[in-house]
């Protein structure tokens, strides 16, 4: 596998000179021919060849960097897509370099809470000491946030990063839920989300269900059999050391059921709110997951099934009978049932099509993607392939219609100007101020997926101000003076400068009005405004201002 890896480096996107590790290589035999769309499928696409390249870059990456369009053109758009769908074949030294800067990302939850302990105001009396401990403890979530931005900007496995963001949001967890949550999130993203982001949905669902982060966030770790219901007689079990030897007995009176995970699992993670389940199914699911808990919760241990907490009685879930006394198998069966439900296929397909195609994706495309999901037993990669090779993905109606989320806006701007990764928390704070604090969405539904939720008077203002901030050199890692695009532009005419900025920032596409506005320096709509009195041309803004205006323009808010 060594040779293809090297050859495929050429398929990774590399244009910003700071990432000099890669060199341009001739296009290799990237993907096996059978996974590429047929000539007939390609022929019926509505978008021009150039638009297809921009569309693929806008949706499969966090935004094109200068030179990316040319690279995709060289490789061929379909072959490039096939490679992004297979991230293991993309050399990603850029991402590895980012990772080395954030030691906490590789640590276990138990090691994290030991090495970055939360402050204990009672014990850490000395206020200086307290401050030091507190700021060290804050590193844990900060590094996650900083790294999320840096990896989105830098990684060459762009689709992988986009899908990590998608699943992070689908299986949302709130870092502010409580002290333990902050320490369990690194493992959650690293061990549950990342390895399965393009894998099989059942694997992803199962790993998430057993992740201490989700068990804690949706309270399942404390959910137990209701008093009086059948429970395992643990005294017998201790002697027998086998679940099958457990005898059933009425549960002692102590804790009880918690419906939180059972409900959100069905509503948000799998079937969708219209997925045909009832309150009785929510309770059956919650009962099935009793005993799915965290081992040594104070030390942030890993998943464990505790028979003593489990409701061992018979359950009926979505018409399936789960016999009494099967222990952990109840939960596994619930996951099997919902992962294979047509409602889940449709729900996940809809969410993917909404992310990658349009806010109201064509039903025919959703149906085909759901069919692929069902046929392949929930293969996320193949479901995405159905979407990325569809005529709907390359339709005129789907072109430039998605509004960028704040995270997408910031990362796309950083990529457009070849920013170096920010090792401070500044950029992550900017994303937060734009309305999307990373890992800090309280409710389990995740951040909005449609443009109407992100665009309003206040957000437009913040977005404009972000563009101006970046152009003014106030975003770490951004330096327009060393921006390689600048070299050629400085000496050119005003018109050519505008074209260069429109190319680099707006993907070459701006309305004639916008182009005119950027070019003339005189605002044709405001000729009678006081500033442009007597029709005198305004001072020609420098390149920085041009970039700031372009980032604040309506065109840059879409992808």
């Amino acid at each position, binding site marked *: 596998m060594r040779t293809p890896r090297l050859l495929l480096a050429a398929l990774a996107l590399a244009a910003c000179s700071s990432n000099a590790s890669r060199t341009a290589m001739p296009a290799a035999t990237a993907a096996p021919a059978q996974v590429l769309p047929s000539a007939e499928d390609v022929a019926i696409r509505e978008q021009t060849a150039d638009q297809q390249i921009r569309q693929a870059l806008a949706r499969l990456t966090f935004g094109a960097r200068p030179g990316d369009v040319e690279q995709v053109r060289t490789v061929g758009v379909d072959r490039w897509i096939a490679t992004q769908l297979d991230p293991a074949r993309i050399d990603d030294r850029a991402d590895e370099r980012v990772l080395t800067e954030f030691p906490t990302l590789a640590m276990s939850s138990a090691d994290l809470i030991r090495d970055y302990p939360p402050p204990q105001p009672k014990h850490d009396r000395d206020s200086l000491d307290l401050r030091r401990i507190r700021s060290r403890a804050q590193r844990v979530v900060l590094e996650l946030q900083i790294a999320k931005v840096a990896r989105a900007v830098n990684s060459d496995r762009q689709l992988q990063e986009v899908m990590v963001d998608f699943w992070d949001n689908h299986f949302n967890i709130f870092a502010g839920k409580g002290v333990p949550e902050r320490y369990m999130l690194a493992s959650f993203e690293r061990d549950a989300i990342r390895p399965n982001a393009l894998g099989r949905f059942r694997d992803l669902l199962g790993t998430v269900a057993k992740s201490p982060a989700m068990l804690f966030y949706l309270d399942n770790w404390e959910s137990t059999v209701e008093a009086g219901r059948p429970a395992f007689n643990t005294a017998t079990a201790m002697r027998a050391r086998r679940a099958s030897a457990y005898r059933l007995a009425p549960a002692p009176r102590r804790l009880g*059921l918690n419906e939180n995970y059972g409900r959100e699992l069905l509503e948000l993670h799998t079937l969708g709110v219209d997925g045909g389940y009832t309150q009785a199914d929510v309770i059956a699911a919650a009962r099935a997951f009793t005993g799915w808990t965290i081992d040594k919760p104070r030390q942030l241990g890993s998943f464990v099934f505790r028979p003593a907490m489990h409701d061992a009685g018979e359950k009926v879930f979505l018409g399936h009978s789960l016999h009494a006394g099967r222990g952990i198998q109840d939960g596994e069966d619930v996951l099997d049932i919902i992962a294979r439900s047509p409602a889940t296929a449709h729900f996940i397909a809809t969410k993917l099509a909404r992310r990658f195609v349009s806010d109201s994706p064509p039903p025919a495309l959703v149906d085909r993607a759901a069919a692929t999901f069902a046929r392949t037993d929930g293969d996320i990669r193949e479901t995405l392939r159905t979407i990325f090779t569809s005529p709907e993905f390359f339709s005129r109606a789907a072109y430039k219609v998605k509004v960028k989320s704040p995270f997408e806006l910031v990362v796309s701007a950083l990529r457009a100007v070849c920013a170096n990764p920010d090792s401070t928390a500044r950029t992550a704070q900017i994303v937060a101020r734009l309305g999307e604090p990373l890992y800090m969405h309280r409710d389990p539904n995740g951040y909005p997926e449609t*443009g109407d939720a992100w665009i309003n008077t206040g957000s437009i203002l913040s977005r404009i101000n972000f563009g101006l901030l970046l152009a003014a050199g106030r975003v770490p890692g951004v330096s327009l003076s060393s921006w390689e695009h600048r070299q050629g532009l400085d000496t050119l005419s005003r018109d050519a400068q505008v074209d260069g900025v429109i190319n680099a920032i707006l993907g070459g596409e701006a309305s004639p009005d916008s182009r005119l506005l950027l070019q003339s320096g005189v605002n044709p709509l405001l000729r009678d405004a006081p500033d442009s009195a007597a029709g005198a041309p305004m001072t020609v803004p420098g390149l920085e201002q041009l970039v700031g205006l372009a980032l604040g323009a309506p065109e840059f808010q879409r992808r």
Partner: protein
Amino acid sequence: MKSGALALVTMGLSPSFLKRAVYAQGLSRAALKDKVLICLFQRGAADALNVVVPHGETEYYRLRPNIAIPAPSILTAGPAGVRGGAPGAIELDGFFGLHPSLAPFKNLWDHGLLAPIVAVGSPSATRSHFDAQDFMETGTPDVRSTSDGWLNRYLAVKGTCTQCDAQRSPFEAVALSQQTPRILEGPAPTVAMASLADFSIRATGTDVQRLEALYRTGNADLIHGAGTETFEAVKMLQSANPQRYAPENGAEYPRSPFGRSLLQIAQLIKADVGLEIAFADIGGWDTHVNEGSVSGPLASRLGEFSQAIAALVIDLGDRMDDVVILTMSEFGRMAKQNGNGGTDHGHAGAMFVIGGHVRGHKVHGRWPGLAPEQLYEGRDLALTTDFRSVFNEIVMTQLGAVGTDKVFPGFEARTEDRLSLL
């Protein structure tokens, strides 16, 4: 005399208000120009049974052995229902009480400014937060295809009224939130802002004009439309210049996002920018685990919630006569506590209506009881008042809307359901 006016006077506000308030009684209800409605959303389903506490119900204590709020002592005299160090509910009417953390509401109740509504909410059976929030904000329970919110539909319907002022303020409806809440989504222009202080463009004159022009040209789409409204709002706010704000009458807002939101609502009202509808929300009510009783997570949430609202009322002072504050949450929680000292999702909830003209000092709504056969689906507080009945009444009496069939399509407001809150 209207109790609201007296209340504000006794809370240390200007006596001149008293005269004006009395004078206002004689005015026609058509003169509604400066009326303001402030809607506050408790996202996450607040546990209504521990907010407006039915301490006269023995079932309540049976269902919630560890988390119930103790009944007020007959010896209670203190404002927070403190009795010998063990706080119970704050007595309202002998049957209901307030959670002791709602002590800042006690003054409002005593002076007739506070009207709790019990067993109110959505007729929808959903126990999904997100569906239920949508239904409450669209005003169309169980109709998921409604895209606009009822406050926006009120504005849009009003916009077609020929007698109404043609000149509308960009600040007619403001949400103090980063995203436009569903309740304000729709065709009528609204403003969403996280912070008043940040509501300006960080650029110099010509760049601002150039940016504005970029949004004026091109398609009439979502982004261009919002952009155009942004620039109008920024200009208006600059001329009103509400910066450097100091709350009046000694009002102290909690230093939390919710406290800051309410402070900024007061700021906008006093800046006279034409505000008619304001919205803010506060999360953290989804108490599945260890919600506590007289103390604990729910108690501290209620403390912040009521301190902020009381500060707003005190700060607005005599202006409260034109203001109605309406609180809501998507549904209530199970009558019975769950296995973790918390409560799972339920059905009917509680609301508060607060204002100078509110028929306060009275718990509104019919109480359905908590006996097993009285519970909704055997587990939750049953519903006796449809939230649309409350919204409809407030839109008509506070905002002066006449025909509300377009604001609440498919809802027939029956006079016998009317609570007469105002």
